[in-house]
């Protein structure tokens, strides 16, 4: 059934994405009113460099969380791909683009390994990816030792064509990172909301047994989501390496918590079965703009930025829980009086 534009707007207003959109608009108004520099496109777009990795990875970690899993190894894979690209290019003398492909392949392999343990051995996703975050960041450090360059310096001096990934600007305004982000949003949106594969991901998250009985290879679906998030971490790693101009083994170390924050803020249920790409993308932008705008417009020390991001997450989850609580309370009053006693 096709919806008319008006109906579409009405249904959109009721959705979580609309709230995120309002928060984003509010941020723009507040920051823009305080400091007009904020709204200058070149200034605004320059902020994308700091948040692009989190934006890209959170899109695909959404897949993982919809299946009811969690991925805390993506940050480690970012560092691993960065250093693999650097070492394969500099010390093995391979073409930079082939080095990127090798890095992406390695990341997919890392994702597949963790995914295999989760899907086929039945280990909790949190534990495996926790181990994965140690393992892959450790491997990244070992790979960096293969290089002639000392690891704390990082590998630099990449060819100009590779540096163009982050430098290129469409119409001299829109940075290529933004274009990559939009392409990936379209890819992820199409994959999750428009294909059979996406429906399978949702069904596995709602009820893995039901999915299995309806002929879906739920294990393979779960494994594939970890591969997807691994590949997205590789893309983020390559873009970040191109922007920084150096390949280092630890550039993704602090990404884990912002990524999960973005996915959760985007409305994905941590228990699985619910979530949307647009929500995640908007939430990643909300966090990114907040981290960029507060120091620029309100002179807040960048070291304090964990506070507003943490507060935002807490306020959002608490208010969502309270908003949904009326139903929960009524439900529990009807079903069992025990609930009140246990409080």
């Amino acid at each position, binding site marked *: 059934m096709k919806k008319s534009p008006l109906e579409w707007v009405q249904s959109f207003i009721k959705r979580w994405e609309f709230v995120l959109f309002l928060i984003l608009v509010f941020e723009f108004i507040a920051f823009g009113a305080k400091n007009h520099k904020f709204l200058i496109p070149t200034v605004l777009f320059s902020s994308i460099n700091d948040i692009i990795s989190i934006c890209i990875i959170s899109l695909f970690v959404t897949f993982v969380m919809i299946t009811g899993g969690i991925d805390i190894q993506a940050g480690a894979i970012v560092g691993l791909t960065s250093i693999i690209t650097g070492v394969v290019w500099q010390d093995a003398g391979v073409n930079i683009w082939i080095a990127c492909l090798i890095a992406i392949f390695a990341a997919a392999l890392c994702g597949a390994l963790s995914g295999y343990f989760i899907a086929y051995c039945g280990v909790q996703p949190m534990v495996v990816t926790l181990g994965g975050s140690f393992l892959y960041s450790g491997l990244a*450090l070992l790979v960096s030792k293969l290089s002639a360059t000392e690891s704390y310096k990082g590998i630099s001096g990449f060819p100009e064509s590779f540096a163009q990934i982050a430098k290129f600007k469409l119409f001299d305004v829109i940075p290529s990172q933004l274009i990559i982000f939009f392409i990936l949003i379209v890819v992820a949106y199409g994959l999750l909301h428009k294909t059979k594969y996406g429906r399978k991901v949702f069904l596995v998250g709602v009820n893995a047994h039901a999915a299995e009985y309806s002929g879906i290879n739920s294990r393979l679906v779960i494994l594939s989501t970890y591969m997807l998030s691994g590949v997205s971490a590789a893309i983020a790693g390559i873009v970040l390496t191109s922007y920084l101009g150096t390949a280092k083994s630890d550039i993704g170390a602090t990404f884990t918590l912002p990524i999960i924050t973005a996915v959760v803020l985007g409305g994905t249920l941590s228990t699985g079965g619910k979530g949307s790409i647009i929500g995640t993308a908007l939430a990643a932008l909300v966090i990114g703009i907040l981290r960029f705008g507060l120091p620029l417009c309100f002179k807040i020390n960048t070291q304090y930025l964990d*506070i507003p991001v943490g507060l935002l997450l807490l306020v959002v989850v608490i208010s969502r829980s309270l908003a949904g609580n009326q139903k929960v309370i009524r439900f529990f009053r009807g079903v069992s009086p*025990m609930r009140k006693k246990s409080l």
Partner: protein
Amino acid sequence: MNSVKNLFKIRELTSFLFLIVLFLLVGSVNASFLSPTSLLNCFNDSVVFTLLASGIAFVIFTGEIDVSIGATLGLSAAVSSSMLRDGSNWGAAVLAGLLTGILVGVINGFGVSILGIPSLIFTLGTNGLIRGMIYVYTNGAWVENLPSAFTKLSKMKLVGNLTVFYTFVIVLIILAHFILTRTHKGKYFIAVGDNAAGAALVGIPVVKTKMISYILCGVFAAAAGIIYSSRIGFITPTAGNGYEMKAIAACVLGGISLTGGLGSLIGASIGAVIMSSVSRILVFLGFSSDYDNTITGVLLIAIVVIDAVSQNHAAVKNRHTRLAARTAVGEAGKGGDQD
């Protein structure tokens, strides 16, 4: 019931045996590792992780998680060591540090057990908040120049080479272990984690138990922070960064199930010893400490995968035995396998 009890014992025993095998293997390569001083140092150095892991174990028993303990450690360390630096009373400084931990625990417990927000998400939020508070409190500067009497405390030996801190922690954990396994209220933690709905039905206060577990976790993390400041002697704003993941890993190594309801504090402290010994073991094996994270990751994944596979195998085998027994009696048609 007996078999369940045995399972608990076996899980601890496995990690303990693993620890012994690990130590013997390292000892066979480099015999000086097995000298009493060296072995005791493995235990002494694990004191911060032992406290952190046993603290978070309470929360994990109830089936929840707390990723804010690293930040809690940093904040309480900053609070109490800055008070010590400014010449305040030791008792007051320690108390202030512990109160910080209690406060964090109350906030986490409120969000998770009363508001019912998924624990990973809520503690992720408080983690950011607390980490930021450390910067606000210290202005981003290091807390240095602690009184030397305080830093010397960490080097004080009691019996043989055992430090006072580790002895204190071990006594505390053994005491807590007996409370958890021998008293009614102590068993609530495991019961809630095993089956929250069932626990509520038999009259166990689920919300209160979870609340207490978070407060205990906060206090343990705060105590770890105070010991940390005595051992290190200065506090940076990033103190304890990533310790939450290592504490969770220690719990897993110690045979605690992250889904709750399974494991023991003794297991957590054994896991903490394994966890913190990795870099020491590497030195004795002649590897550089660059292998630290790789080995930790491999250990963690190997242990949980072996555990999961063997449990699945046992479950399948049990089901087959039951099915075979039922078919033999001729009840196979009655309702199928209820497993």
